[in-house]
């Protein structure tokens, strides 16, 4: 078990998401930074999608009730284990009773908004409709379908067995796979159905000017402030399925990007979709961040997925290599 020591911390249990339940009106949910969650699990020899704790408000502390191998990824929060500093994107061994404390995310060359605590064996809450992710709408999955509270005790799954004792750390993908435009962080967008139905001038501004993530942004969606998107003529669409990453444009012209916990359907016009390979970048941008949209096409979006897969394969290779070495010692 691990015990949550922080009050009202907006942390939740997440995995890679709830697939195959769109038919019931149930969205994907899952980690806002699936790459960080996957890397944490790789460091521990877990399945890629083992459930972890996603933290987004700091400081945040937990106590390990038993000896536990764990990994921290995502935002660099100057983590301390019983007062001893830990490297970001690393794994470490906690003794029974040890307290892990994460502080406010540090400004560095790469600043994230969400940190992930992965444990050997994963967080062992029951699977609901094929996933352990928390979905607040409908109170599905996770720990009682809600955000974690002080005093919650999370059960841990059985660890894979092999010893992975050595501390090892990864170069965060924010540094290994940077993407910028004019000095601002960027995400790539594949145009969607209504793209051609906005005025050329407003589309031009969409690609050229930065957007800011407003405080009305959360796991459901990021409401952006920037140049307004103007339709050539008013549009009322019929409701249709959408996925995380879809950029909807309500009548006021300010785009909203669907995030993990966003609805599985919508009816506002869609200018494009932040590609799956880049959604983690957006998921890690703190409120107030100014960023840019970059145009891509189908082949570009596939190449980005391939690049991400190749990077993960390399991480897996290194983690296995170092673990084998430490086991041999």
């Amino acid at each position, binding site marked *: 078990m691990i015990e949550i020591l922080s009050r009202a911390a907006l942390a939740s249990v997440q995995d890679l998401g709830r*697939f*195959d339940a*769109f*038919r*019931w*009106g*149930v*969205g994907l949910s899952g980690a806002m930074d699936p790459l960080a969650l996957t890397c944490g699990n790789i460091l521990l020899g877990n399945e890629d999608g083992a459930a972890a704790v996603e933290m987004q408000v700091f400081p945040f502390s937990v106590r390990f009730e038993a000896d536990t191998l764990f990994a921290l990824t995502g935002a660099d929060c100057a983590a301390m284990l019983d007062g001893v500093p830990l490297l970001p994107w690393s794994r470490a061994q906690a003794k029974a009773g040890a307290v892990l404390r994460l502080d406010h995310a540090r400004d560095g060359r790469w600043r994230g908004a969400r940190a992930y605590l992965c444990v050997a064996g994963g967080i062992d809450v029951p699977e*609901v*409709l094929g996933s352990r992710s928390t*979905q607040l*709408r*409908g*109170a*599905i*999955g996770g720990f009682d379908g809600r955000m974690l509270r002080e005093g919650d005790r999370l059960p841990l799954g059985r660890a894979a067995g092999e010893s992975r004792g050595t501390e090892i750390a990864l170069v965060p993908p924010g540094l290994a796979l940077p993407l910028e435009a004019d000095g601002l962080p960027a995400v790539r967008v*594949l*145009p*969607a*159905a209504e793209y051609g139905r906005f005025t050329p001038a407003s589309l031009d501004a969409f690609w050229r000017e930065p957007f800011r993530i407003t405080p*009305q942004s959360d796991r*459901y969606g990021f409401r952006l402030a920037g140049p307004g998107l103007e339709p050539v003529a008013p549009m*009322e*669409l*019929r*409701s*249709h*399925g*959408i*996925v*995380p*990453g*879809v950029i909807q444009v*309500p*009548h*006021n012209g300010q785009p*909203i990007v669907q995030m993990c916990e966003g*609805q*599985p*359907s*919508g*009816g*506002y016009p*869609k200018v494009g*979709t*932040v*590609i*799956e*390979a880049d959604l983690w970048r957006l998921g890690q941008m703190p409120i107030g961040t100014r960023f840019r949209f970059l145009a891509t096409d*189908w082949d570009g*979006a*596939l190449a980005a*997925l391939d690049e991400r897969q190749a990077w993960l394969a390399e991480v897996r290779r290194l983690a296995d290599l170092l673990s084998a070495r430490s086991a041999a010692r």
Partner: protein
Amino acid sequence: MSAPRPTVSHLGTTALLFEAPGETSLDQQQRIWSLARLAETWPEVREAVPGVNNLLVSFRTVPRRFEPLADRLCEAWDSASALSLGGRVIELPVVYGGEGGPHMADVIAHTGLDVEEIVAIHSAPVYPVFALGSHPGYCYLGGMDPRIATPRRQVPVVKIPGGAVSIGGAQTGVSASDGPSGWNTIGSTRMRFFDASRDPPALLQPGDSIAFTVAEIRR
């Protein structure tokens, strides 16, 4: 002149959106259900989820080339026949207006009708469930009278309660749990639409129907 073609568009690399040409109708929607059944048998398809006159197809494996899959969907649409799913009719008593219907005034302003007329028009039909979506257990209903159609709100409301009966464009529906919405809420009802421990977890499925009855009209 050739028949209008369906459109197939990108939703990133996670899914595609197939949109049928023409007006929304039950017959058209039954062809969507039929297309969904077929597409779900294709190996690269994870889910094929009907919307209103459209279909979201999510990928199990992302196709290296997009066009062949899009073409296959369009061909399948041309030969799809209406799939009738004989379902149940659920009666839902609604309290119209008042605190539970905060946007009734907007619907009155937009349509030029009075409350009694809006309620009479809204509660008259038996609405077939065209699709599920938005949030767990939520049903998109067909058959709303176009006289009470009202555009979605300029900016979505951050939270409307479960049981809220609302109008968005030419559609109507009932929220299954608390959450954000861009629709105009005109009334409220009590019904548990979703329970993850049930199988199936959703109370209603495409092919079932809802009949609204008037419990009360509040001003």
